[in-house]
């Protein structure tokens, strides 16, 4: 026993080093477990508070861009108002379903922390459970899909960004309705890869890529980006498609969080089928 203690004392530096490294690696590897306890993420109250304060200051330097963005969104929304459609009998509102019950609820939120240069990028928003935000909700900006809420505290929430190699988004080509999954490759923040589009589909540069609406997170047809290049992978029956993302993640300021009132119903039903 005395020898053992002497051994520990003599090598305490190396042993302590190994111990801390083991602990750190456990944190890295179990990251997904730790996400659930929001203490370790920037949605915890203390970090959220400080990030919010700093964002309030830096926002002044971006007022021009923010105004432009809001003006663009105004114009877009005005384009969707009843007055901007010719009244015809076969016109249905996208947001309301056939029972004329609202399916998707939009909540505006402000981005208070954001990164584009890591492998796993996350975004922090200034709204949390107090504002009705829950994990699993989709996040979009005026220009397109941004990410999915992973972690919520009382007043803040963290969003797994589209620029995160752990996130896949079910998407389709708007023109032809072929669907695949969109994934970021960890390289530049302007491009992502779309896989799973079969060879017999016709794909051309400039085609719009939108959400498929299969996952109950995003409504159908929300813009993700445009096709930049199309390549035939060797010996595979799928195209390799590079997509230019429509959202400029470097200038993200305001986003909308989408709540789906009928998500539970859909997920429940799908789970029954899965268990068969």
């Amino acid at each position, binding site marked *: 026993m005395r020898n053992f203690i002497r051994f520990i004392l003599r090598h*305490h*530096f*190396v042993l*302590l*080093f190994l111990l*801390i*490294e083991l*602990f*750190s*690696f*456990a*944190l*890295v*590897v179990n*990251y997904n477990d*730790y996400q659930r306890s929001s203490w*370790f*993420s*920037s949605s*915890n109250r203390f*970090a959220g508070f400080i*990030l919010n304060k*700093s964002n309030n200051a830096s926002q002044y330097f971006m007022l021009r861009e923010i105004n432009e963005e809001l003006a663009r969104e105004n114009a877009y929304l005005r384009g969707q108002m009843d007055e901007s459609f010719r009244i015809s009998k076969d016109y249905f509102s996208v947001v309301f379903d056939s029972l004329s019950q609202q399916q998707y609820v939009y909540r505006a939120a402000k981005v208070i*922390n954001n*990164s*584009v*240069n*890591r*492998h*796993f990028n*996350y975004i922090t928003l200034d709204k949390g459970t107090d504002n009705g935000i829950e994990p699993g909700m989709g996040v979009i900006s005026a220009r397109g899909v941004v990410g999915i809420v992973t972690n919520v505290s009382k007043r803040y929430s*963290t969003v797994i960004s589209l620029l995160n190699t752990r996130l896949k988004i079910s998407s389709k080509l708007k023109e032809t309705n072929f669907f695949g999954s969109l994934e970021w490759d*960890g*390289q*530049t*923040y302007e491009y992502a890869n779309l896989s799973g589009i079969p060879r017999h589909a016709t794909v051309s540069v400039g085609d719009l890529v939108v959400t498929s609406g299969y996952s109950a997170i995003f409504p159908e047809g929300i813009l993700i980006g445009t096709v930049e290049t199309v390549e035939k992978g060797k010996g595979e029956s799928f195209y390799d498609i590079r997509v230019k993302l429509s959202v400029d993640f470097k200038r993200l300021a305001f986003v909308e969080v989408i709540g789906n009132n009928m998500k539970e119903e859909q997920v429940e039903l799908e789970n029954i089928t899965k268990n068969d």
Partner: protein
Amino acid sequence: MISYLPRYIFNFIFLVLVQVFVLNNIQFSGFVNPYLYILFILTLPFDIPGWLLLGLAFVLGMTIDLFSNTPGMHSAATVFMAFLRPYLLRAIAPRDDYQPATLPIMNHYGFLWFLKYAFVLVLAHHSFLFFIEVFDFSHFWSTSWRILSSTFFTLVFIFVAQLFSLGKNKQR
């Protein structure tokens, strides 16, 4: 040792704030991110006990992790760097060894010595950090390029920071 305490507390807070609010938002050419905060570990006194060195490195890394949603990554890399520090200091000691009441800074041991010292530790920290982040070796060359370019920018920032502290310590 005690007289250093307020200065190091200030250093810690200052470096964390600069890292989180300024440097984490700067990306040269898309993915190069300087990590100035490790300057705190570089400038700790020569005779700091090993357990305290590792403990401080862990707390520092964890603080950065807290703000950037990367639990474990920065702490692992910073502790690794802190672990190498005593061995490196022994390896590059000047002929007449380190003088008492001096710190491992450019001011006391000259540009070349400090460059050697900072380069090895920064490179070790960045290599560890970026390879944990990617978690495989399949993107070896692109990761290596990120490591080298980030190391360069971190070193530039460290030297600029050292120049600023120059005036303060001249009377020593």
